[in-house]
């Protein structure tokens, strides 16, 4: 059996396993799903980014409308605003990673390179959300 494990055979086996585990998936399903997530997170961002920018720049009086240190802590300590900011962080990261994926996939045709791009963006996105959440939680605790 091991004699049959040529690189080509392994590739065929992997493709077959993939097809069996996702029998409903048609070619291009991943791109369609990515487009739906991009559009969905984009629509969510229209609301969340507007709320974020208005709250951070248009509510506070003064040049630039920026919050002082204590004002930032008070803002993050509000549970409703904390949840909105977390939602904003998730939506913006998902949208950014899918946008980058779209640009990079247009420049690269090789499936293996595209899979590497996908994996890298997953890691970068996860790190971004983790760091953002850690920042928000730390500030909320300090308030």
């Amino acid at each position, binding site marked *: 059996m091991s004699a049959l494990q040529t690189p080509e055979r392994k590739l065929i086996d992997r493709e077959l396993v993939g097809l069996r585990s996702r029998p409903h998936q048609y070619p291009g399903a991943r791109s369609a799903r990515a487009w739906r997530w991009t559009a969905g997170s984009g629509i969510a961002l229209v609301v969340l980014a507007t709320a974020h920018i208005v709250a951070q720049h248009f509510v506070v009086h003064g040049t630039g409308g920026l919050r*002082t240190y204590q004002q930032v802590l008070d803002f993050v300590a509000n549970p409703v605003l904390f949840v909105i900011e977390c939602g904003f962080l998730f939506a913006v990261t998902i949208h950014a990673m899918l946008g980058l994926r779209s640009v990079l996939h247009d420049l690269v045709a090789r499936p293996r390179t595209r899979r590497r791009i996908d994996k890298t963006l997953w890691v970068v996105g996860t790190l971004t959300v983790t760091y953002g959440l850690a920042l928000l939680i730390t500030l909320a605790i300090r308030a």
Partner: protein
Amino acid sequence: MTTDELRAHAERHDQAPVHHKGPGPALSGWLDPRGRTLGGRSFALHRLTGLALVLYLYIHLGVLSMLLVGKSAWGSFLGTVTATGFLVLDVVLIFGLLFHGLNGIRVALVGSGIGVRHHRTMFWAATVVGTCVLIYAALHVLGAL
């Protein structure tokens, strides 16, 4: 075919220097405005603003890390970014957000099959709305309101 569609069809065969390196247009292809229709130009600007906003996301996260340092660090940072030069950059950022957001709504609608025949009208309507919001935001950020 309408006159606009015929013109767009002819424009597509113009001599824009698109060098294909993958299945889509290469970066040099999007950045060249020659031989592009309205949709092509807005696609290019959508991507450019998107890439700029991703860059800004990480700059923003880096800047917010100053809050972890403490009150004095944030205070001195505020002193720097409320200078007029930085506030003008804020206005450029708002332009990027508005263009990307409003054009994104148009793309999402057209991509979902809604208003496909009116995509040009939607583009110009979004331009008018975006310009009005940008003027208000610029005046507010620069302290004129």
